[in-house]
Structures are given as structure tokens and as C-alpha cells.
């Protein structure tokens, strides 16, 4: 394997937090039908007051069921949608302020640092462009590579993600799902980002291919020093790749801890149920299961108090009335649950 590193990376790897998310909120208004009299009839609480930091060279896992606000969080961090309130910091830069200010150059500079790969590698590649065009398109926008070096750089990127030089002249339809995801990764890496958001990158791939992509992401982290926000509903892959994990439920982070701790000693009843719900590929590991009743409630009118209380097997009267704060059980383990609060008496 060729040595590959992004220039000037080493010196900036000292301080610990790369991305800080502070009190981030995103509400989507819901309108009634009709053309003339559109009335706002509700609010979707997609992301409600979430806080977390992502450290340098870390993989931060964000896990939750559909509709819990994982993808909205990713889009907010990249400022692809406007937040309702809250802040995101990338190193020293306040992302939202940077994007609000009109300086195009600064915006581009920030865009280069943060990249995104999507779930569906079939939909996120233009079928009419060759792989070479796809991977070199960022060069046109960011102008950080002189044109005479494009070819070399594209080949380097292809090699980095485990593809061959001759693939550059082909079109996306000639590739399998796993290979397409590699192309997407190469395209994201073309701008030499420091931070990569991977939104369900392996969900649409076959088992044997999934492992290839997960390993590739791990390898790239070592070789290029990337920081990931890894978003998935698949707990097994989150466990495999993440250093720390946040569990989301209905727009809120209900638990955040180091991966091993979270999976060994989950504290929040939702996390516990989520972990137990995953079938384990070992017939000997037949465990007792708590099967959660009901479904995730609508985020338009989320339940009062703790949002999980209608499905919670251990809910107490207080859970209906008051929302718990995010309690720090240990410096590395936060949980939003009254039952874990030592000051609460039941």
C-alpha cells in the first residue's frame, strides 16, 4: 500500500475536540392542507436540544430507530438545513455563523473540512459521469489541485479506497454496491476533509461487502487520521466501528457513553431494550428478551415528560410529568433517565 497523508495534518492533531454540538434544535413546521389558508398545525420536533462533542480521530456513533433525528443532526452539522437554534463548532469556527456570513471563500474552506457519504450509493452517484469525473469534480469547485495533477490524485484516491486505476474510465452502473460506496468515499476524500459524516454507509450492502466497507473506514481513519460521525440504526456495526456512542430517541440523546461500556452496561431502559432486540448470530446466546410494546410515537406531539415513558417497562409517575436532565453517571457516561438519578426516591 502506498503511503498517503494529507499535507499539514499532523500539526493540527493536538487538542481534543474537533466538533462540538451545543443545544442544537430543529423543528419543522407542519401545515394544514389547502392553498390559500395554510395554517401551521403542529411542529415536528426532529432534533430537540442535543449536546455532544466529537474528538479528533474518533468515531462517534449515533444510533436510533427511524425518525429519531439522526440524519437531521448530520444535515444540521453541515448546515445543509437551517437550525431552529443552537450552535455547532468545528474547531474554533462557529459553523452557522460562518455560513451566514457572506464570505464565499470561507464557506468553501469549511465545506472542504467536512464531508458526507450517503446510505444509497446507487442514488448518490451521477450515472452520466465517469468515475474520474465524479472524483475530480471537487477539484473544479475547490481548486486545490492543479489540473495537471488531477489524474495522479484520482488514481491515488482510487488506490486508497481499494479500487484500480482502470476503474476511473467506467460509469457507476458498471459497479456493484460495495464498489460504488468506495467511489463515494473516494469523492468525499478528494477535498482532504478532516471530518466525515457517514450516514448509514453500509445499510444497503450485502453482509460480505458490509465487512469490507467497515474495515475500509477503519483503515482510512488510521492512514489519513479522519474523524467520523457514524450514523446507523444497526447496532452491531455501530459497536464494531465506534469509540463512543450516543443513542437517540425522538429527537433527544438519551444515553451517551464509551462503546464498550454502553453495550456492557446500558443504563437507559430504551438502550437496554434496543440492545436486547438485536438477534445475535449465535444459537447458544439465547437470552431473555424485553420486547418493547408499541411503536415510536409521533414527533409532532411527543409524549410529555420523558419521551420514552409510554413504552418504558419501568416507568414511574414522575416520568410522565418531568423530563430528566442528561445525568453524568461517570465522566464518560451520560444518561437521561430519572431511574438512574441517585437523588430520586422511588
Amino acid at each position, binding site marked *: 500500500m502506498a503511503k498517503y497523508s494529507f499535507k499539514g495534518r499532523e500539526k493540527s492533531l493536538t487538542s481534543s475536540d474537533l466538533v462540538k454540538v451545543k443545544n442544537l434544535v430543529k423543528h419543522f413546521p407542519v401545515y394544514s392542507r389547502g392553498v390559500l389558508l395554510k395554517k401551521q398545525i403542529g411542529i415536528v420536533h426532529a432534533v430537540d436540544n442535543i449536546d455532544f462533542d466529537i474528538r479528533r480521530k474518533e468515531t462517534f456513533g449515533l444510533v436510533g*430507530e*427511524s425518525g429519531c433525528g439522526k440524519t437531521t443532526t448530520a444535515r444540521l452539522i453541515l448546515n445543509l438545513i437551517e437550525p431552529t437554534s443552537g450552535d455547532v463548532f468545528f474547531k474554533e469556527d462557529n459553523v452557522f455563523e460562518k455560513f451566514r456570513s457572506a464570505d464565499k471563500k470561507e464557506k468553501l474552506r469549511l465545506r472542504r473540512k467536512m464531508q458526507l457519504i450517503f446510505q444509497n450509493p446507487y442514488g448518490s452517484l451521477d450515472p452520466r459521469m465517469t468515475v474520474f469525473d465524479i472524483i475530480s469534480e471537487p477539484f473544479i469547485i475547490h481548486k486545490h489541485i492543479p489540473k495537471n495533477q488531477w489524474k495522479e490524485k484520482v488514481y491515488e484516491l482510487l488506490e486508497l479506497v481499494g479500487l484500480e486505476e482502470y476503474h476511473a474510465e467506467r460509469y457507476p452502473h458498471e459497479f*456493484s454496491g*460495495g*464498489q460504488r460506496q468506495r467511489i463515494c468515499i473516494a469523492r468525499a476524500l478528494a477535498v482532504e476533509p478532516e471530518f466525515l459524516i457517514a450516514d448509514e454507509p453500509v445499510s444497503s450492502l*450485502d*453482509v*460480505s*461487502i*458490509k*465487512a*469490507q466497507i*467497515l*474495515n475500509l473506514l477503519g483503515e482510512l481513519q488510521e492512514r489519513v487520521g479522519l474523524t467520523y460521525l457514524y450514523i446507523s*440504526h444497526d*447496532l*452491531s*456495526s455501530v*459497536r*464494531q466501528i465506534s469509540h463512543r456512542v450516543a443513542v437517540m430517541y425522538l429527537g433527544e440523546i438519551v444515553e451517551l457513553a464509551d*462503546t*464498550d461500556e454502553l*453495550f456492557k452496561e446500558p443504563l437507559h431502559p430504551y438502550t437496554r*431494550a*434496543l*440492545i*436486547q*432486540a*438485536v*438477534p*445475535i*448470530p*449465535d*444459537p*447458544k*446466546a*439465547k437470552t431473555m*428478551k424485553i*420486547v*418493547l*410494546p408499541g*411503536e*415510536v410515537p409521533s414527533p409532532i406531539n411527543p409524549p410529555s415528560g420523558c419521551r420514552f415513558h409510554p413504552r418504558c417497562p419501568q416507568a414511574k409517575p414522575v416520568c410522565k410529568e418531568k423530563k430528566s436532565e442528561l445525568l453524568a453517571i461517570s465522566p464518560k457516561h451520560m444518561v437521561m433517565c430519572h431511574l438512574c438519578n441517585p437523588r430520586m426516591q422511588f
Partner: protein
Amino acid sequence: MTETILNIEGLKTYFFTEAGIVKAVDNISFNLRKGESLGLVGESGSGKTVTALSVLRVVPKPGRTIDGKVEFNGEDLLEKTEKEMQRIRGSAIAITFQDPSSSLDPVYNIETQLCDVIMAHETVSKTEARKKVIELLEVVGIPEAETRMREYPHQFSGGMKQRVAIARALACEPTLLFADEPTTNLDVTIQAQVLNLLNDLKKKFGMSLVMITHDMGIIAEMTTRTVVLYAGRVCEIAKTYDLFERPRHPYTEALLAAVPRLDMRKTLRVIPGNIPNLIEPPAGCRFHPRCDYAKQICKEDVPVLEEIEPGHFVACHEWRNIRLKGERSH
């Protein structure tokens, strides 16, 4: 030994496309005992779904089952007339599909869709049929069945739709149910509910179940015996317990090593390369280009399914000579 309910021998279903002949199911044989839960596991294009469709004889064009035997209760389904098949489909053998939103008709309400199934197979009045629908919906765990059955599929969530699809499959109390990736589109907590439901119903109705999935976790949890498919052929058939403990086919072993696990972090082993193109599949053993143990013979001869221990079948030339790396240390 309990009696065999389904016996598939040498099944071949090919798709005659313009690009060439796709050998989606190429000489697959296995059997299913009464009351058993059999897992059919494989990646996309391995022939899991086409096998189920071939049994029910609903392979879409340009596909055709060109050879083989599908014996259901001792009668060959491939010899039946279309009319006889119609009677069997839905009443004796039923299937639920991966995506309930596309297998339920959006323009009819749930009541109509379920009554149709019942009235097509049984001579009952509309009132009786309706009563049965309410019962069925209650069995699969849909609250307020009487009011909800007048609703349309789009008014149900994904998990609820899958329950309706299961209710429809169970409407005439089939003896054999194919569940084709019943939980792939569902969230994990909903998946757990649906899997529990299938297990309960299986016991309640005494059905045989064929669980089609790519998820090794579901296989481990739901089935007693497993058939591993790769590129339209059977690799290995074994009791689920033995399959996970002592996989004997290199593909099974590699597949198990490639799955991330919730209960431990391990180095994922990668199966190199891609799933082969079924128009021109590799000669000999179809897995040989990706196999760590491949020898010259694997490139030339198609391995036959051998019984290496009672009830454990493997299609591999080299099974005697290889010690699989993946044999688990405990």
C-alpha cells in the same frame, strides 16, 4: 423422524433475459419437515426468494422453472395444473414478502383484502369472513381490529403493515409459510415484535416455516435447521447449532466471520471480491474465486452435496482437507 412436508430436488429456475440466461436457482435440493423452522440464508442474488417463488410457481417472466421436483405432501407441485395451484396458494402454502407496503393493495381497505383471501378459498359468507378477519387481526396484535380493518394500507405503520401481511398469509391456516425477509425494512424493536409474533403463530397453528433472510442473527434465533445458498446453489445444510459451531463450507465460515456482533468486538474478516454475475457464473464451485482454500479441482468440477455427518451436508471438494480458520475457540 417426523414426516417431510416439502421436498425439493434438483430445482432449476432460470431467467431468460436479453443479456443471457441468468441461472438464479441452479440445482437446489433440500427438504423441510413438518413443524420445522428452516432458515434459507444467503446474500442478494443467491436464489433465496426465487426458490420460494418457484415452489409457489409464481416466478415472474422471463423466469421459468425448467427442471426439478417440488414435492409438497408427496405431490409434485410442478406437475399441477394452474387451477390446482391456485387452490394450494394461500390455503396450504402462503408467503409474506419483504416490503409490505408494495405487497398490500393501496386502493382496497384491509378488510376487503383479507376477506378476498378467505372467500377465495373457503365457502363462507361475507359476515363470517369478516368475523374471521377481526380474529386474525387480533391474533397478529393489531389493536382495535374492528375499526382499523376499514383503514387503508397507507394508514398503517411499517410494522403494522407487516402484521397485516402476516395476517393475510395466515388467513386460511396454511401448513407451510414462507417468510421472505419479513423484518428487513423494520426497526429493531419492531423486528423483535414481529419475530416473536411469527414464533407464537407457528406454535399456535402448527405451521412449518421457511425463514428467508440474510441476517445470521435471525437465523440463529428463529430456526432449527439452515440451508446456506450462494449464487444459486446450496453450499451447506445443517442444524443451525452445528452450522454456527462447526461450519464446514468455506463460504459459511467466511460469512459468519464477516458479521459484526453486538456481544463482542472482533476483527471482521473480509470476503474478497464480489458476488458473481449469474449469467456467466464461475466454472466449478461458484465460490472458488473468493475462496481462501480453492484448489485446481474447484475451478473445474462442480462439487456435489455430500452428507459428511448425519444431517450435515456440504458441497465442497476440499472439506476433508481443510481446517477452517473460523472454527470458534471458546
